């Protein structure tokens, strides 16, 4: 029997749990495991399907984390899984230096579905890597160095992406970081204006800040930015890693405002939840730099044959099933349910906001986020707070979620809020 048969045939959940916990302690990170346990999130994923995931013990949860938006097409999507299996009958990764037909086909498809005149693609594996490519293209093409980015922005943790992330805890232990990044207040056009210098290469932002607490940019802000960038010959970069591929109710979030960036960064759901792939899509004008330096950015695993086929199948699935529209509709249903909770639990829910199925609930204090996560798990929902702001719980289910499942999640929120209310009043009466 091969190692895979061994692994797949082990069905005893207690044995699996014990072994996994030991291995985490001994070989990964003992502290991470403890944190998961304290947060009630020590789930070991077994079966996955649609909007749901089952713990190895058989408990079912609606997955509202989805790796911050990897599973737009649903967990373990049958059609895309089959596509990858078929691809495995013929392909492997392909040599990175070879001309890969599938890469050309995917690039063509992306040029077709991305807004405006975005045309050329450079493929990588992860979102952070694609952000790095965007920053490099901006510097290489403009010959300038400064990147204006946003407070509370999140763009990844590798070397050129990390300085763009707008939160000190991620950066401090690793200083000095790559210089040339300025941070300004999000949704404040004057702040950007004031930060522009002769050496500004690009403005980089998420159209909806994800880790920053689900904060959508105003349409007027984005159109203002577009004009400001065009007037000052500065490139506009949208990080659509979390917002792309239908998440916000449009194929790309940029479409809400009609603003076309010069570079767009894509990852997460492009993978179909099955195979790592990311890319920077950019205009023909910017491609000049890479035509002069064709091998300056190399990536062994970026845009492999298999990855490109999976991404093509993923886009086909999203289009065929009208997932952006579905996200808009389900998002509306969520919003209605959550808004009524805001009325009922006014003392606990400060705000409910989002776009499509990228939703956030804001609590008045930081302790509530983790407590809610733990209660939600008890009520059959996996949902966690955003990294840059623990007062906000993120709801990003797969876009194939059904109406019944939306209602189930809203109900789980209601039950959990009720429990928090009870805890709070008990605490107060003890104090009193």
């Amino acid at each position, binding site marked *: 029997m091969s*190692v895979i048969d061994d692994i797949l045939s082990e069905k005893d959940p207690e044995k699996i749990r014990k072994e996994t916990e030991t291995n985490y302690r001994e070989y990964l990170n003992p502290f991470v495991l403890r944190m998961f346990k304290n947060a009630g999130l020590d789930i070991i994923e077994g079966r996955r399907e649609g909007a749901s995931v089952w713990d190895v013990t058989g408990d079912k949860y609606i997955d509202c984390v989805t*790796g911050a938006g990897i599973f737009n097409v649903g967990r373990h999507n049958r059609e895309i899984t089959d596509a990858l299996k078929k691809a*495995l009958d013929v392909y492997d990764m392909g040599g990175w230096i070879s001309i890969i037909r599938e890469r050309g086909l995917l690039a063509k498809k992306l040029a077709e579905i991305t807004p405006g005149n975005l045309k050329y693609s450079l493929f990588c594996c*992860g979102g952070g890597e694609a952000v790095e490519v965007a920053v490099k293209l901006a510097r290489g093409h403009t010959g300038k160095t400064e990147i204006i980015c946003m407070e509370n922005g999140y763009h990844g943790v590798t070397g050129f992406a990390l300085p763009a992330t707008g939160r000190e805890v991620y950066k401090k*232990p690793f200083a000095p970081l790559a210089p040339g990044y300025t941070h300004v207040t999000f949704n404040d056009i004057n702040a950007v204006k004031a930060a522009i210098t002769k050496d500004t290469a690009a403005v980089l932002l998420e159209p909806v800040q994800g880790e920053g607490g689900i904060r959508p940019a105003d349409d007027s802000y984005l159109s203002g930015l577009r004009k400001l960038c065009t007037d000052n010959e500065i490139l506009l970069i949208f990080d659509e890693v979390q917002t792309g591929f239908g998440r916000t109710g449009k194929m790309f979030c940029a479409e809400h405002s009609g603003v076309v960036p010069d570079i767009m960064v894509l990852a997460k759901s492009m993978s179909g939840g099955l195979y790592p792939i990311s890319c920077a899509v950019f205009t023909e004008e910017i491609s000049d730099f890479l035509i002069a330096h064709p091998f300056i950015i190399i*990536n062994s*695993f970026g845009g492999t044959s298999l990855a490109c086929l999976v991404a093509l199948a993923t886009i086909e699935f999203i289009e065929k099933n009208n997932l952006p529209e579905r996200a808009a509709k389900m998002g509306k249903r969520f919003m209605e349910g959550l808004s009524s909770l805001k009325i009922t639990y006014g003392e606990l829910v400060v705000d409910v906001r989002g776009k499509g199925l990228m939703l956030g609930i804001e609590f008045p204090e930081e302790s509530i986020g983790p407590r809610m996560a733990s209660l939600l798990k008890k009520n059959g929902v996996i949902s966690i707070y955003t990294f840059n702001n623990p007062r906000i719980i993120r709801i990003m289910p797969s876009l194939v979620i059904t109406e019944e499942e939306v209602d189930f999640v809203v109900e789980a929120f209601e039950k959990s809020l009720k429990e928090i209310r009870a805890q709070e009043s008990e605490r107060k009466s003890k104090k009193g």
Partner: protein
Amino acid sequence: MTGSAEEIKKQALADFSKYVNPQKARVLKNAGLDIIEGKRNGACVWDITGKRYIDCITSAGSFNVGRRNPEIVSALKKALDEYDLGVFLLCSKQKADLAKKLAGIAPGDLQYVMFGVGGGEANDFAIKLARGFMMKTEIISTLKAYHGHTGFSLAAIGRDAYKKPFYPMVPGFKFVPFNDLKAAKGAMTDDTAAIILEPVQGEGGIHPATDEYLQGLRKLCDEREILMIFDEIQTGFGRTGKMFACEYSGVVPDIMTVAKSLGGNLFPISATIYREELNDFLVTHPFVHLSTFGGSDLGCIVGMAVIDFLVNNRIPEHAAAMGERFQKGFDVLLKKYPNLLLEVRRKGLMMGLQYTNDSIGPRMSYQLAQNGVMAIYTGNEPSVMRLMPVLVIQPDEVDFVIDALDKSMAAIIQQGGIEKY
């Protein structure tokens, strides 16, 4: 997607030029490498028009287990019946299993694992871990080194051409000549966090570190309390005739990065493996480094299948034997073409042909493609041709490559124009 192979090829080249990069397509065409990969098997790849090549590029050592290894393909397919990528924020059994397996095969007391997707990412984390743990900033790297294109790794690359258009880089990196212990010693200061190097420089032109150099560095690092990082991305998983290249010298680094062949040529995955002591930093900063796609459930299953294949089939030993067979052929070529071939540097199946000048590399790529072998020169040193076939290469395939080299060199001599070195 129907049509004759020729039509598909034409369309693919057009799409690639129009939406990916026209210049890349041109450069490859001039090198005779405008190959559109169709069937792949073992050491070979077929252009969609049917021409067979022995793949000596293998994405710089990503395909150690062979092209489309049936065992790994079947493992991934089975895994696809149950799993997807998994959620990186949750506990994953597959991640835990692979971490344990890596700790088992990694040298010495390397024990804890942080997963990533690509090699650059693994090196970025290694450098971050060194800075975070040591609370020092300086990183010593080597001239001509190659560590990847993400920010921290790029800063550690010992070649300006990759870096200059993207200045300013991450500060705090110093460069010393490779295989020069005195230079490394001279560069160490009280603020040095780590030294990073490849046990065999790959892109730099296939330069193996001497055992004495690595042993000397280990001693210096211990004395000065500096961490030692080995980038085994190209050398790992049997490439050099041992599971990891550092086993030759017996030197155990504090941090080791692996990628490429861990993915079995099927699925992107990389890892940074480090000593228990260093985990202190991650215990106080558990979520300071994240990777959505790093160490996914599917990637970990593939990683385990790869390690099992390498161990069960004693692939490192096979690589050593095939390397010897290649060497016999090289010895003949060295005598036969002294005006062309200056030197061969080799460790197992990580082989570099040092030509007498820069122009020969690209011309040899072209000739070899005509003779059924895919090979290119190294990124940082165009006078060196790298040969890194799959490790499951068979004796007759080795002989085929040697024969192709012979024919290609003869053709170049016939064309003339070889300047004396």
